């Protein structure tokens, strides 16, 4: 299965934009976009597979200090940045809807 660029549906655009606005974790993206987690995750998978997003794991020490397992976070890749612009072009109102202050602290990669 070659990676193909996912269709820019509204949920896909919302997720992409949320990640570009520093909502990096699955549940945070779900909160920011109002989409159920069952929609957000498959979209994240598709975007990552298409190379528009990439994911890493949060530093183990950070998680361990809070006595919880580490979380996985997502960032927009170079080609993803162009897709974000496409998304904004296509859904102009979305840009304002999601334009909130940076929500979660910058994760330190492991």
């Amino acid at each position, binding site marked *: 299965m070659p990676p193909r660029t996912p269709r820019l549906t509204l949920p896909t655009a919302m997720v992409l934009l949320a990640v570009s606005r520093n909502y990096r974790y699955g549940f945070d993206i779900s909160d920011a976009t109002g989409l159920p987690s069952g929609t957000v*995750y498959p979209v994240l998978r598709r975007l990552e597979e298409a190379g528009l997003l990439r994911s890493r794991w949060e530093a183990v020490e950070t998680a361990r200090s809070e006595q919880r397992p580490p979380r996985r976070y997502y960032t927009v890749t170079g080609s993803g940045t162009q897709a974000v612009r496409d998304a904004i072009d296509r859904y102009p109102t979305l840009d304002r809807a999601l334009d909130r202050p940076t929500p979660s602290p910058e994760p330190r990669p*492991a």
Partner: protein
Amino acid sequence: MTRLATDPEPSAAREPAPPGPTGGSPPGSVIVAACATVVPSDRRAEWQAEWLGELAYAWSVRRRGHDTPISVRVALLLRALGAVPDAIWFRRHYGGDSMLSQDLRYALRSLARWPGFSAVVILTLALGIGANAAIFSIVNAVLLRPLPYASPERLVFVFGTPTDGDSAKVGRSSSYPDFADIRARSRSFSQLAAFSVQQTTVTGKQFEPGIVSGAPVTASLFPMLGVSPLLGRSFSAEEDRPGAAGVAIISNEFWQQRLGTNPNVIGSSISLNGKPATIVGVMPPRFTFPGATAVWYPAGEPNAPQARGQHSFTILGRLAPGVTMGTADREVAGIAKQLETEYPSLNAKRGARVQSMTEAIIGNVRPQLLVLLGSVALVLLIVCVNVANLFLARATARTHEVAVRTAFGAGSRRLARQFLTESFVVTAIGSVLGLVVAYWGSKLLVSNAPTSIPRASEIGIDGHVLLFLLGLAVVTALIFGVLPALQMSRGMPIESLREGGRGTRGGLARRGLRQALVVSEVALAVVLVVGASLLVKSFWKMQRVDPGFVPDRMLVVQIQLPQSRYGGYADGDRVRAFYADVYRRIASRPEVQSVAVAMQHPLAPGWTSSFTIDGREPPPSGQEPESSIRPVMPGYFRAVGAKLLRGREIQESDGLGQPGVTVINEAFARLHFPNEDPIGRRIVRGSWWKGMPDSYEIVGIVADERFNGPRAPADPATYFSLAQFTFNDNWLLVRTRTDAKAFVPTLRRLVWSMDRDLPLENVQTMDKLLGDSVADSRFNTALLSLFAVVALLLAAIGIYGVLAYTVAQRTSEIGIRMALGAQRSSVLRLVVGNGVTLAVIGVAIGAAVALVATRSLERLVFGVSTTDPGVFTFVALALTAVAATAAAIPALRASRVDPIVALRSE
């Protein structure tokens, strides 16, 4: 195929999740773990780590110890449900063409091919599973979840208990001095507290006066429960002493509803029963122990000489470390024995025992809830049988398909797995819908639950309920999936492939199996219908019990005259004047038919006091008989519709300073004057305050008012003249000519025109009070009847299904019979007879099972034996009739078989 462009931290992904800040995994982990099995194994650990990481983080941010709101848990659970589509996405993208995904796809396709079948199966499963989860949500909250206090398993009540087994004399409550002695002498408890419950008039500048449930408590109560106020502080030991300045703690609900959640409430003044008090604390939401308490205040060590005779306190203790219930029980029994010797008259026959707090709170509802859970489980079993039947029917229709697949090399194990997959897929869809049913069902149950069910506010869908639902789904899928799968795997391919391969041995065996299933379905339905019918009959009997008064169009409201303005019991002039006046004013209204004033309304058991009978040898001190004390104003019996059997009523002339009179009830006459005429005899009881007579002539006998509720017989009761036996707090009972509710505003206006500061909120109708007294029976009866109707319907569908199928199979046989001269009526009889035979076998088995099963209803029925022959006969006939009706449709179809058409198809 591409790999995910990630650089997973292997140790992070594979390491088991460390426990959360206070241990325990976040809600939803189970769902993720279950979904992980769908994810291809090479990606499973990483996938699971991502979901658990998010859940654990969200949980660590939102949880708040034991007080984490259910909504937070449910929100997380719903989040976790997103793992289902995600896991399926993984399976579809990376799973390759595994057998499981083939099976899944094939199952989904075959379900889509039979939409009607799939819809019926999924909907019945959703209802069955959902109803079970809804009932379980009650069981979970009420019976299984620990009480919301610190180490609740160590909390015990110390109850009073009669040493001679006669509970009329010694109740569960204790006197304050007894409590103080037990606290001083016992070693078994690390803490002991006492509390009472008292209707309390609360007034204040910021709110309307009101009567609320108040609780005098010892300062030790809140620390012992491990509950601290949300605002302010608990009571100090000094505030618990007599003569300390008045303080009060209010409930969160009281704070919100009466004080508008005023943040500066601490330090403000209110008045409790006319005495000033300062609010020092506000309890956290939903804490209303004991009962539905709105305001707590210090008990203040009542130590007057007569205090040992006033048993209004309940003792609660925390077992000291290492002490067992048995040890504590022996110790308190020993202390009670010492007290009995020290205070022979006041503590005669007064023992003590400990009971676990949990058991005391939920023990009474356990049988009721377990019966409901058992019944709803039976419904699910019937659903399973029915679905299995539907699957078998479809399996027959698919014989050809199976034969083709077998011929192409599908092994029997593979085929069986295919059918199991199908049953799991429909169950999975049914369970998701069932969750919706459970959510709404549980809401509906809570809003209709009788007040006798404790902890109703805690009922909801939580992790345990979801886990239960998941387990239920798996078991369900196995129960109804295995039979068709077994049948399928034993298919007879070659025979089936032949055109018109009817009458094969496989087909006959299948029909036998389906008939067996129908028989068991009928049997299960019989058990449920018998149970429901017993409850309906018992409820009907309860409704027909003569309550001893006429509740129609009657308003009931309690008036509490504060001692600060009306004087105490010893000086009742103002009290008597008030009631005489209010009586006159209400009675003069044209819309009022009659008015009664009484210290107890006809459904209030009230309290008892001891007496002796004049002219008889007095019993030893402390062993005098007791009777219910019920002072009334003249005209009471006529006004409430109680039947005067002999003698006369209480009259205007029975005033203060006149000879004391009393009217007794039948129970009193039966117990104390079995072979004598009580009229003219006298009862003697100490005069409690000045001017009160100390002996009373029995002037009348009245039929029993069922003041203990319709289920229990009335205790002996003595009705006095309110003028001779005056109390400040009395009930107004107003019977209107038309609609009672419409008179409420007028009633309020009338009373408030006399005294603007009297609280008058809880004006209720007597019908409502009577309804409340049987609310738990109504709840059980309604639910069990609903289950029985569903069971009956499913059994009817089952019978119909099997017969319709049989008729279709036997069309040509019937055609031959008719060509040979069989009458339509005999064909009709043949098919209906077939259905009725199945039903009769089922009824016989079911009745035998019901004889044993209905024993569990013993504590729930009233006036009906659990083996009531009438009920059993009725159910047997009804089920047979239903079976005959269900059989009639296929029978009619069979009788219309055209022999020519039937034979042509051969």
